[in-house]
């Protein structure tokens, strides 16, 4: 796990041993991480694992119980006010004014950040250009589709030219095309040097991040680039490899596969089964065994771990640890 080593003022975000307790519950338990400037930092974890709590701590909305954090070089304990001037935040659900038009929403946010008239005009023009909002300026926000609402929300969050944007599940509930377009926009902005802190449940989005972290019940259990995480020993234990069994009869095949010696775990992925098997496991034998039970095997081939595999493995492992510690 990467711990902050160099000067916290150089990072976009530097969190050191963050703890947040609500009464007897520890929602965030000793979490440290560092987000470099210009990164797209994907923050993942099951619902209720503490993602939103950490965003609130980093944006100065929630006091830290313990630990310290710097955002854009400013300490959130002492400079929360200044932090809020320099960040943008887009919350989980659409939280703009439905009964205001697109242009009115943008103007409202421009005033909140007290942009001078000239700069506000220029910024609103830029945002409209960048987010393609031109045709909708006079439309009420309520009448926009999910994807356009998110573009407007993003536009409002970045009107004051923050160098760091917190996006809390920005693509939840919008269609795949809008999702793809929003990510294209994020990449474009990232290219301009803006740092993104993004929470998501979508694995394909996680794969697009330059840096991902995974938290589970208030503990951070993975932190690194997607490629690094796939090499973790917990995910790919020594002496094992991953295979993919492609078959039209996945359910029945899975039931059988789980009883075949040498297969450590198996899960269905669409029309295939992903399995973790011991090294030198004989794939020809496996095919023969499945076919003997009447299953059509289209193909069996080696597979590299996906991020989903990574998180599923890590979650199982930590679930087991959690249960063991409770027992």
């Amino acid at each position, binding site marked *: 796990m990467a711990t902050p080593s160099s000067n916290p003022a150089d990072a976009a975000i530097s969190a050191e041993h963050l703890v947040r307790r609500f009464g007897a519950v520890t929602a965030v338990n000793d979490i440290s991480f560092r987000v470099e400037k210009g990164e797209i930092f994907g923050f993942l974890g099951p619902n209720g694992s503490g993602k939103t709590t950490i965003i609130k701590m980093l*944006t100065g*909305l*929630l006091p830290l119980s313990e630990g310290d954090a710097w955002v854009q070089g400013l300490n959130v304990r002492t400079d929360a*006010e200044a932090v*809020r*001037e320099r*960040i943008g*935040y887009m*919350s*989980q*659900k*659409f*939280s*703009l*004014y*439905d009964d205001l038009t697109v242009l009115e929403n943008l103007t409202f*946010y421009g005033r*909140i*950040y*007290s942009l001078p008239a000239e700069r506000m005009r220029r910024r609103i023009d830029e945002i409209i250009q960048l987010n393609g909002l031109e045709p909708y300026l006079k439309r009420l926000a309520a009448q926009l589709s999910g994807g356009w609402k998110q573009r407007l929300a993003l536009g409002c969050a970045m009107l004051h030219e923050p160098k760091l944007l*917190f996006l809390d599940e920005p693509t939840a509930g919008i269609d795949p095309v809008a999702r793809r377009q929003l990510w294209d926009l994020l990449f474009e902005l990232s290219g301009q040097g803006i740092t993104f802190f993004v929470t998501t449940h979508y694995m394909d989005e996680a794969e697009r991040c330059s840096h991902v972290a995974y938290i589970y019940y208030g503990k951070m259990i993975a932190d690194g680039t997607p490629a690094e995480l796939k090499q973790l020993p917990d995910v790919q234990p020594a002496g094992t490899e991953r295979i993919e069994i492609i078959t039209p009869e996945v359910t029945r095949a899975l039931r059988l596969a789980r009883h075949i010696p040498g297969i450590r775990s198996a899960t269905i992925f669409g029309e295939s089964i992903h399995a973790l098997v011991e090294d030198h496991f004989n794939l020809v034998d496996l095919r023969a065994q499945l076919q003997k039970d009447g299953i059509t095997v289209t193909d069996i081939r080696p597979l590299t771990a996906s991020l989903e595999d990574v998180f599923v493995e890590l979650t199982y492992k930590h679930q087991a640890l959690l249960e063991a510690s409770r027992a």
Partner: protein
Amino acid sequence: MPNPFRGFGAVFYKEVLHVRRDPGTLFFSLLIPLLQMTVLGFGIDTNVRQVNTVVYNADGRQESRELIDRLKNSDTFHVIRYVENDHDLNDMIISGKARVGIKIPVDYSDRLIHQMSAQVLVLIDGSDSSVAGQAINVTTSIGLDESLRRSVADQTAPRAVDMRPKLLFNPDSRSPNFFLPGLTAILLLNVTTFLTAFAIVREKERGTLEQLFVTPVRPFGLLLGKLLPYFAIGFFELCNIVFFMRFVFRVPIHGSVLLLAFLSLPYIFVSLSLGMLISSKAATQGQAMQLAFLTILPSIFFSGYIFPRETMPLGFYIVSYFVPASYFINITRGIILRGAGFQHLWIDALALFAMGTFLLVIAARRFSNKIIMT
């Protein structure tokens, strides 16, 4: 033939669960009628008692003191102050501190001793016709009784004590004149407390409030920005109500309309702050509605709008001091009916202003502490 009642059992089961999950709503809907009943049951006392009374005893001798004692013993009058001149006597009534003023002339005892008839002036605030009627009846009968006692002792004496009631303000006892100025206070709550409470709770429901807190907006900036438009709306509505009262219901306004406008500002301020406080507590517009109703009820029952405050049981009377409408009703009735001026009403305005500031500070603190946390 399909069963037209299909699903009844399931829906019934689900509805019972909803009610059990939301005890707050049930509590309010059961509590409010009970509260209303308690208030109406204890509060309505058609026998007007303990009317605030001011006495100017210019005579001051034995006979005059006896008369005052008899008035006090009647249970109708509660002497709150003795004054030394006509000006103070009038002032006490105009400012609303007393509803009845009794003036015993300087030659009262002399005239009685010389077996002449003595007149006692009884000034009555006629704005509330039930109070006025009771005051007239009781003083007249005490006068008759006093005269009778004296004539029993001395057959030759004329009708000795002559009580002369004089209705000040609202001499024709029109009830719109009495009720409409008070109603102004209640109606104004609708556009101030309710609108502000809803305006903020709506932001909570939509999540826009949370979004705002991540920006440099500070609680006081937020609250003041929210408050001011509704302040203007509240003031505009007050003007409408006063216009209607004057020109449609023909209630004469004896005092200064400008003063009424000016002294309504602290009341609007209190009602808005109350709305803010409600919105800091309520999570949904439904809850805001319930809480707002809890503020409307005391404004109707404890403010003196329907029942004179003096005749309330002690507990309710104390409560009435914490109800902003009590002060504003005194202001509206004072200006409209009694022609009161700033010197009579500044204390009510000050009380309202203090309440408003207090509520606003609490609301702002709750916003900065609580809302952010949730």
